[in-house]
């Protein structure tokens, strides 16, 4: 009984996971599927599931091709952490790559630092559109951290069970 009451407190961490993987493009699909599996117990709608998968895919792709300059080296690692606080998902994607000198400019829709790689410049715009909140923190030469938040599932079956 006590546990159920505590779960209702949205500030409390209810689940957590952390993955580290090589910064190679094969892992883009792995990363978004891992997050999708992690939020499945919350009964997300198809739309919420797609939103999260797209946002994670954007952030991980950025880490691989911009942070680690598309080197495809197994030495370069991407860190991904997910935290659930009640029905709010927090995803953090961190690389220890080159960093972003001007975060504001990088977040401009259609801006891309790598037109040679045929990027659309829509990565951050999609993350913003599909998640509730987005925080980007970057340091040139040290890396980039992208934090995204989204409320998952509109109906909580734990509450209605009582």
């Amino acid at each position, binding site marked *: 009984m006590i546990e159920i009451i505590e779960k209702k407190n949205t500030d409390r961490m209810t689940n957590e996971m952390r993955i580290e993987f090589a910064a190679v493009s094969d892992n883009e*699909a792995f990363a978004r599927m891992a997050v999708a599996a992690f939020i499945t117990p919350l009964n997300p709608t198809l739309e919420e599931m797609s939103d999260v998968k797209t946002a994670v895919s954007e952030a991980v792709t950025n880490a691989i091709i911009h942070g680690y300059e598309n080197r495809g080296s197994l030495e370069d690692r991407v860190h991904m952490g997910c935290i659930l606080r009640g029905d709010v998902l927090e995803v953090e994607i961190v690389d220890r790559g080159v960093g972003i000198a001007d975060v504001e400019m990088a977040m401009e829709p259609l801006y891309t630092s790598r037109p040679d790689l045929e990027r659309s410049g*829509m990565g951050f715009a999609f993350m913003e559109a599909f998640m509730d909140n987005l925080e980007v923190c970057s340091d040139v030469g040290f890396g980039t951290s992208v934090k995204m938040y989204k409320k998952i599932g509109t109906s909580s079956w734990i509450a209605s069970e009582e």
Partner: protein
Amino acid sequence: MEDFKIIDNYLMIRLPDEVDHHISVDISAKADRYIMSKKVGNVVFDFERTTFMDSSGIGVILGRYKKISCFGGKVYAINADNRIRRLLLLSGMQNIVEIMDSKTKT
């Protein structure tokens, strides 16, 4: 897997289930080989099988548009579901790509 077909002056690209950066590098390279060697003028992206796409897919469309538009070619998107349609509209693709109604299957 994606597949390619040439019908008259159109390169038809049937996109895979998931279009992300990893797969899009491959699609772009193959599409360009067809465009160059077969001298096709227009490109049609078929989203019938596609359930997931990120901004890399937009990059593939933009890249092909840049290659063929200066020779008067056009780019089409067919069978896009609501999800894909939303991604296309968010990136302003409706200005350069003819997004055909899903019902008009060829």
